[in-house]
């Protein structure tokens, strides 16, 4: 199943913030985690993650720091900030509302495929 591009874009911020709540991480690992969580259903052009990370950094939701991988490769590690946590809580309520609203309609009927 392919998820609509706009929906992926809307999900991007809470997804990245929620992954960073689990602990400090870096670009490649964040994308791996996204793939793992969605079972490959959320298709993300890898390169687009970095401008997003920079925007979140500019907004103060995450902090960034250069470090090194265990193999000695240079890596930029990202860490969620207090403002980021607050933002995630806010996003979470919004998604919960959206989920509840749609679920109220769809929960009682059969899935659109008719299965």
């Amino acid at each position, binding site marked *: 199943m392919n998820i609509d591009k706009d929906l992926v874009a809307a999900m991007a911020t809470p997804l990245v913030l929620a992954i960073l709540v689990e602990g400090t991480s870096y670009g*490649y690992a964040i994308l791996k985690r996204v793939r793992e969580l969605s079972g490959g259903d959320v298709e993300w*052009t*890898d*390169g687009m993650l*970095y*401008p997003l990370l920079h*925007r979140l950094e500019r907004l103060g939701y995450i902090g960034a720091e250069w470090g090194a991988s265990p193999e000695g*490769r240079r890596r*930029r590690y990202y860490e969620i900030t207090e403002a980021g946590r607050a933002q995630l809580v806010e996003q979470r309520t919004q998604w919960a509302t959206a989920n509840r609203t749609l679920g109220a309609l769809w929960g009682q009927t059969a899935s659109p495929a008719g299965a």
Partner: protein
Amino acid sequence: MTVTIVETRISEWRAAVLRGGAVADTDADELEGHLREQISDLEAVGLTGDEAFLIAVKRLGEVHQITAEFAREHGDRLWKQLAIPRPNDGRLRSIVTMLAFAASTAVLVQLARMLTAMPGASEAWFVRDVSLFVLPVLAAYFALVRRMPGRRALVAVTVVGALALAVNLFPFADGASTEALVAIHLPVALWFVVGAAYMGGDIRASARRMDFIRFTGEWAIYYALIALGGGVLVGLTIAVLTPIAPGAVVQVITWVLPSGAAGAVVVAAWLVEEKKSVIENLAPVLTAIFTPLFAVMLLGSAVVYGVVGSGREFDRDLLFVFDLLLLVVLGLVVYGISARDGARGAGAMDAVRLVAVVAAIALDVLVLASMFERVGEFGFTANRVAALGLNLVLLVNLTGTAWLTLRLLTGRGQAIRIERWQTGYLPVFAAWVAVVVLALPPIFGFA
């Protein structure tokens, strides 16, 4: 083997990402780190380096999409790229060198101005010799930057020295018209020395000469822009200072103006070299706007002059006006040729250029004919010879240009021939200027 291929591909990809300036070096590091990690993961499951690279790049996304996304997030970078060059060692040295030369000429002009105040010196001397305090500095700057070979540099120094000596040893009469002619032509003669230095002494190559022609046009645009800004600055300074310190105005005009004008000569030259891409977009646009306008103006004037005749008010001032007109037309034509894509065939712009040149020639021939009619009546003077000579030099050039443009338009010649004609003609201009500076004053008894 494969390892090096992958490394080459990664560095090519990195260069492509960095192009355009939206992605900073550190961002490229981050992206490259991602790419490498993805490649080694894919290799771990059995793919070859080449295959792993292809898939990893595909996952990262199209380079232009990535850079567009970075540009959206970091819009300021693109502007900085244009306005302030990223400071690195080479660039810093280039700026410092340029500023040192600009400051030298600014100081030299002040020295010259103070010498004028000494007994025995005159205003006329300053006006005549001021270019000697500016343009040789610019030539020296290029000789240094372009690493002009020592022997050729020596020739340039000798030429400047000879010009300076001759001009200052000539016993000009008070208010001599030959002195005024020298004041006008000496900067042009020195500009050719600047050209020799600009070409690093390699003055025979047609392509290098074309570069110099292009440089001259772009330098003029930059200088005009700086002059415009400087004019506003000085004007406002005077307006602000006048109420509280009227005396300061004189100081501004005597100190800031000459030094600024001299320093800007070097700064403009540096800008042409540093910011080539900015003006390269402007030059074709400017010629595209003004060539047709001048064509219309020239055509209209030619018709009016043809019907009415050159009139009884004709005098040598009019000849000067026509010299100026021909110079502007020539400048427009040469600049247009330098901006045109040599590989392209004839276009509408070439036709417009031909109209402008032919109209200018027709106009000039009308004026010249009536000039020759009267020359017996008034005899030759230095001014008249200078104007007439320049007129003939320009006329020959424009006739050649018209002929070659016609051949181009009828498909019997190539654009490169016009370029060669112009670059080959440069020594004729240089020779004529040398004649005016060095030969005319003695011939006319320094009057």
